[in-house]
């Protein structure tokens, strides 16, 4: 597709399931980086453009977008099986299901140690504060949400230096517990650290980390899968065994951390929290133009209601937020001035709290060479005079401008536009057969045949 000069080694957790995809354009229209095209009746995702935000997953009417995960059986390769659970996992369940029951269910599933991801937020906070004091860039942007980091890398390259290079709680906790378990005498190769993820972006971040060499997390289990497993164990009566290994580092601060404003309330200076990738896009456009200044800190999250709205969350996001707020209030009532802090000595914030360089990898350049890029842009602007400009997406690109760009890059043909096709057939520049062939190459050959096996049609459930 585009950006041919960039390497293609970005790991993505979102993949199109070709057997299920009906090539319907829903995903293509919502993609914030124009990463999707329809070819031969199937959606294809460009690895260079995708930021793993999961908007396509949410928009797909036939569940054709897969989120990859590691096989649960993989955990049994390790004698010590740690599951790191984000607070939103517990937040999804009704209030009457106690956290301890969920812990027991996780033990039944096979984990030996259960820790909440946000147990180390005090270390993250310490690193954040140090970073703010040392760096003069403003606004500083939280590194919490991996989809946002990737969005900035590809769409806002001039803002990469504004990303706070601080390890987010999942990495901090993975390193902390790995060290803690090692210091208790367990050999490193016996420790498997697994993460229950609420979204695809975190999977991509673990499988191909940005700003660090290797993640301390061994594997990833999707939260919706785990949620169903936990429910199954909760419904079944099982004999209470010994409680799993855990610790009591969780704080009200940690419980709220992954929700909108969870980080913001602990920041100094003028700070804003923005959730939802469209909102973030709009805001970063203005930040890049320096339209808004004197902002010290930005908490940006790709999902509406932050991690409570993650694509792998089974519960309702608003109820999840409610439960977590209640849970935090219960914790707060019990907390004294001496808040629980991760034990010193296992992990040094100075040594392990910070990320390395985060580079820009801008998308959308028409050419490396400016004079060629200028020529391509002139051609694109000329093409736009002929394209209808109402972004129907019937050409297999999300909008007319993207089609025009694909055409100048040699990745599409102008006759992919059904309106221009009409014009061209009328002027005998294109035969009926040629037009049908083009339509087939975008939408698949069987597309125009009768098929009652679709939503709203006679046999929709077959």
């Amino acid at each position, binding site marked *: 597709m585009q950006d041919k000069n960039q390497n293609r080694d970005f790991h993505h957790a979102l993949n199109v399931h070709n057997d299920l995809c009906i090539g319907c354009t829903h995903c293509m229209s919502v993609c914030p980086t124009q990463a999707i095209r329809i070819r031969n009746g199937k959606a294809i995702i460009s690895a260079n453009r995708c930021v793993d935000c999961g908007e396509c997953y949410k928009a797909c009417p036939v569940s054709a977008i897969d989120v990859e995960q590691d096989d649960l059986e993989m955990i049994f390769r390790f004698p010590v099986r740690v599951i790191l659970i984000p607070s939103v996992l517990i937040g999804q369940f009704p209030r009457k299901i106690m956290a301890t029951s969920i812990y027991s269910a996780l033990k039944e599933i096979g984990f030996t140690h259960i820790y909440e991801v946000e147990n180390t937020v005090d270390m993250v906070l310490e690193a954040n504060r140090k970073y703010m004091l040392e760096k003069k860039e403003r606004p500083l942007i939280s590194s919490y949400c991996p989809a946002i980091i990737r969005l900035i890398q590809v769409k806002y390259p001039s803002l990469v230096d504004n990303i706070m290079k601080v390890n987010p709680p999942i990495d901090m906790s993975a390193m902390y517990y790995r060290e803690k378990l090692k210091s208790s005498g367990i050999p490193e190769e016996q420790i498997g650290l697994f993460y229950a993820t609420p979204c695809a972006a975190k999977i991509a971040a673990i499988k191909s980390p940005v700003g660090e060499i290797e993640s301390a997390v061994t594997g990833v289990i999707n939260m919706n899968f785990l949620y169903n497993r936990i429910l199954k164990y909760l419904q079944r009566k099982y004999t209470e065994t010994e409680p799993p290994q855990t610790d009591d580092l969780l704080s009200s601060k940690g419980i709220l951390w992954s929700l909108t404003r969870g980080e913001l309330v602990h920041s100094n200076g003028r700070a804003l929290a923005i959730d939802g990738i469209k909102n973030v896009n709009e805001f970063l456009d203005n930040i*890049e133009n320096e339209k808004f200044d004197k902002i010290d800190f930005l908490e940006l999250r790709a999902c509406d209601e932050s991690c409570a709205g993650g694509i792998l969350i089974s519960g309702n996001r608003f109820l999840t937020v409610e439960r977590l707020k209640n849970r935090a209030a219960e914790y707060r009532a019990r907390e004294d001035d001496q808040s629980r802090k991760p034990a010193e000595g296992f992990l040094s914030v100075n040594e392990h709290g910070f990320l390395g360089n985060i580079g820009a990898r801008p998308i959308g350049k028409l050419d490396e060479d400016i004079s060629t890029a200028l020529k391509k842009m002139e051609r694109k602007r000329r093409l736009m005079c002929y394209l209808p400009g109402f972004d129907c997406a019937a050409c297999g690109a999300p909008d007319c401008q993207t089609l025009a760009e694909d055409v100048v890059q040699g990745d599409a043909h102008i006759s992919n536009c059904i309106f221009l096709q009409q014009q061209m057939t009328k002027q005998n520049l294109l035969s009926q057969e040629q037009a049908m062939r083009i339509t087939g190459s975008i939408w698949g050959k069987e597309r125009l045949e009768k098929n009652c096996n679709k939503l709203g049609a006679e046999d929709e459930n077959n």
Partner: protein
Amino acid sequence: MQFRHKIAGGDFAKAGNVASSLKKVLRQLNIDHTVSKRIVIALYEGEVNVVAHAYSGVIEVEIDEEKVKINITDKGPGIIDIEKAMKEGYSTATSQVREMGFGAGMGLSNMKKNSDLMKISSVPGEGTIVELLNYIRPDAR
């Protein structure tokens, strides 16, 4: 390659749209973001000036392999003392404009800072022309 945009005076909601669209163009042309950032900031300031002070204006952008030239021509009150207007903090913006977060008196000096060459001419009572020039290769200045 040329771009031409009309701007309406007083329409603050749209102030910055031209700068945003130029930003996208410069990115597609693979212009280094440290270079394009200055151009976009200078243009944004110029755009806001037209919106805040003038009745209407036209922005013309010309891009070639070496440089980006921007002409901002407005119909408006003009600038009586250009030297004074160039000083940081000097502003003739009304209190309403200031309440909206504009008119801090940094516009022209910011434009000068973010351009390689800037020319201003004005006829009081008629309007102002600002010419901005930025070289595309940072070492060509």
